């Protein structure tokens, strides 16, 4: 198979075609030469024979002149017999001018081949004069008088034999010549196309992408020069490709960076949006609801302490005048300080409430991505729960079990809070008829050095189909109930940003366990930050690639 394919590729090759053309041309030329040679030679043979015959006939005619005149048949037949002895002569006859056959001779050989007939007149020379004319001084007329005819029949079979020999010889020589020249041609072509093939192979190699290939052709001919040109081309191509490659890499890097940046920006916006949609409204309304009564509480407190401050001298005087008395079941002496303290507490606590509400407002509005070097996950859980406190329906039982001695993590409290809010919201929304249990657990996994937050619900669970698409953005089974499909997507992103993992374990009807694993902060804070920064980068890449 391989051999035949090699042969067929050789048959298609340039050198073979050249060889074919060369040898065909040579064959044609040789044949033409041989043909011309044979034709000329055969013509030559024939004309030679004819000339020979003519000469013989002429000589015979010359010699026969006198015997013919004298009608000496014996002499004529002798001459004819003499002539017929020639190999090519078959028949000789001599006739008088009146057409009378005077003598005839035939050669004994009975060859039936091609013949040529030759007729030569016998003439009396014109320079011969009659005696009278000679006496009268008449000049010789030069006019020949025909007195008879010699007829020769020549055998041309000799010519044909000679022709055949010639044909065979020229055929043999021609073939030999052709073979020799073809072989020579083959050798020359092989040498000539050798470098050609080398060049071709080089070009193919370069063409197939091996730009470091170089065609090595010695000499200073066209091929060598084109090889050099190709080498130069390959070199420049290689250079260009290298440049391209580095450029591409740079571009890719830049694009990656840009994508990451862009993604971060988008995510931040998404996070914001999510926050606003899920909690923003709630928080602002809540803040409003709280702030108003809180303001009046504070105002009342102020008023009480103000009034109390005005009332105390009066009451002191009363006590001085009337002695100790009881206010609200306690002696005035005690009540006097207790009231002012309580009034101060009212103001203080209401201010604290105001601060909390302010904080909630900041959560809704502020930049939550600020990293805290030592974030306590339990704080985040508490904050999340306090945010969600008013969302808790009465039928929902919230069970929290916050691990003690949790190590701190590096991260943004708000973002972790957001994750937890999302998870707890999902858990609550999964409860059928808003009735069931939601458990929040924090603990430290020493083995993997991770802080674990688990949100457990006794809800409807997650089907396999949904499970596959949980983390897709905008995938939601609750679109009709205000779901956005962003909660888990963003949560996972945030967790990944913190170098952690978010897992959901669920069976339909069996409730769901959402587990957040966050790496604990390393012993060396400054080092940890570097690591975190690195991880950060790494995780982002991983996400990017996973997409």
């Amino acid at each position: 198979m391989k051999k035949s394919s090699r042969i067929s590729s050789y048959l298609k090759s340039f050198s073979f075609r050249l060889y074919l053309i060369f040898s065909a041309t040579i064959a044609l030329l040789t044949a033409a030469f041989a043909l011309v040679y044979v034709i000329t030679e055969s013509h030559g043979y024939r004309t030679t024979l004819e000339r020979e015959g003519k000469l013989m006939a002429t000589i015979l005619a010359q010699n026969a002149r006198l015997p013919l005149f004298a009608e000496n048949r014996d002499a004529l037949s002798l001459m004819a017999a003499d002539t017929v002895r020639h190999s090519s002569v078959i028949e000789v006859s001599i006739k008088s001018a009146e057409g009378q056959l005077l003598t005839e001779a035939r050669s004994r050989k009975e060859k039936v081949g091609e013949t040529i007939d030759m007729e030569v007149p016998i003439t009396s020379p014109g320079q011969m004069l009659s005696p009278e004319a000679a006496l009268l001084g008449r000049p010789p007329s030069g006019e020949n008088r025909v007195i008879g005819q010699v007829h020769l029949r020549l055998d041309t079979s000799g010519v044909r034999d000679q022709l055949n020999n010639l044909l065979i010889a020229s055929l043999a020589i021609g073939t030999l010549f052709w073979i020799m020249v073809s072989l020579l041609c083959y050798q020359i072509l092989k040498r000539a196309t050798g470098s050609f093939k080398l060049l071709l192979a080089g070009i193919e190699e370069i063409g197939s992408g091996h730009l470091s290939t170089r065609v090595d052709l010695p000499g200073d001919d066209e091929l060598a020069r084109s090889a050099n040109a190709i080498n130069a081309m390959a070199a420049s191509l290689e250079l260009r490709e290298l440049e391209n490659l580095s450029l591409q890499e740079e571009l890719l890097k830049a694009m990656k960076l840009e994508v990451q940046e862009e993604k971060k920006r988008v995510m931040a916006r998404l996070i914001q949006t999510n926050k606003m949609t899920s909690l923003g409204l709630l928080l602002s309304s809540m803040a409003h609801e709280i702030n108003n009564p809180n303001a009046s509480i504070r105002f009342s407190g102020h008023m009480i302490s103000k009034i109390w401050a005005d009332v105390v001298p009066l009451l002191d005087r009363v006590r001085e005048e009337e002695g100790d008395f009881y206010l609200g079941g306690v002696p005035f002496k005690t009540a006097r300080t207790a009231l002012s303290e309580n009034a101060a507490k009212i103001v203080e606590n209401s201010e604290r409430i105001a601060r909390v509400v302010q904080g909630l407002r900041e959560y809704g509005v502020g930049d939550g991505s600020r990293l805290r070097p030592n974030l306590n996950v339990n704080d985040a859980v508490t904050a999340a729960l306090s945010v969600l406190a008013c969302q808790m329906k009465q039928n929902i039982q919230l069970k929290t079990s916050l691990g003690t001695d949790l190590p701190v993590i590096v991260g943004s409290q708000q973002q972790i809070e957001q994750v937890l809010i999302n998870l707890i919201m999902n858990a609550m929304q999964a409860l059928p008829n808003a009735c069931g249990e939601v458990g929040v657990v924090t603990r430290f996994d020493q083995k993997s050095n991770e802080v674990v937050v688990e949100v457990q619900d006794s809800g409807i669970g997650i089907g396999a189909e949904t499970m596959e698409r949980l983390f897709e953005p905008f995938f939601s089974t609750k679109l009709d109930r205000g779901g956005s499909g962003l909660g888990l997507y963003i949560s996972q992103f945030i967790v990944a940003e913190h170098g952690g993992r978010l897992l959901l374990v669920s069976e339909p009807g069996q409730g769901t366990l959402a587990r957040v694993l966050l790496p604990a902060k390393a012993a060396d804070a400054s080092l940890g930050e570097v690591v975190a920064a690195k991880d950060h980068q790494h995780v982002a890449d991983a996400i990017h690639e996973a997409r």
Partner: protein
Amino acid sequence: MPVLRAALIAVLLLLPLPALAYDILVLQSLHEKGYDEAVRGARRGSNATMRTLVLSDYVETDITRIIREEHPRVIIAVGERALAVAEKARNVPVLYMMALNPRIRQGVTGVAMLLDPSRYLSVFNSMGVQKVGVIYDPNRSGAYLRRAQFAARRAGIELITREVRVPKETPAVLESLRGKVEALWMIPDVTAVSPASTEAYFLFSQSQGVPVVTFAEVYLSMGGAVSLGIDRYDIGKQVGEMAESLLAGTPIDELPPQSPRKALTRTNDGVLRRLKISGTGG
């Protein structure tokens, strides 16, 4: 005036020329250089007035009429045909010339075309040959050969003669002379020397190594050794002189036919050298 002259010339040209009186009518067989030469000689030899007619220009009856009407005193016939025509004018003396075999009759004389045999014999003598082969037709050259035999006997030369009746016999007859002669004498005999057989003489000469003595210079180029030719002008002069004496009153019977008095000897030195012959007498 030129018109008148032209008309006169035209009239003169159209009118048949009036026969002028003359003494000699020259009848020439045909336009031929040799005849013209002889006629020129005749004019040189005679001072008589002459009119020349060329037979080929006229019908024969016209000639006879002209002879009858114009009464020439002498007719000079140039060539055999002219002689035959001239002989018909019975009462006019006829002188012939350039006729090879004239038939001699009463009232006809002239100069023959053949040199006297003795002239040839003297050539043979000078070459030192004794046996001379001659081929002839007795009907044509019988008389000449008799004279030759006679002269030969006197000159001590043996003539070995062969007779031929038809030209084609010549080559065979020549063959019969092989080894028997020392020279060949070619005489102007139309049977013995025909254009086709002339060659045979020279082939014989070549193969036998014997010289051919011939009668015209033209044969020298073909291989003849010596030629004794006639001088046609002189023959004409000879005839002119005869006419003169006729006009002077000499009766024609007293003027026998003559041989040419002048012979032109020519030799082919190459042939002579090859045949190792020297000293030809002239």
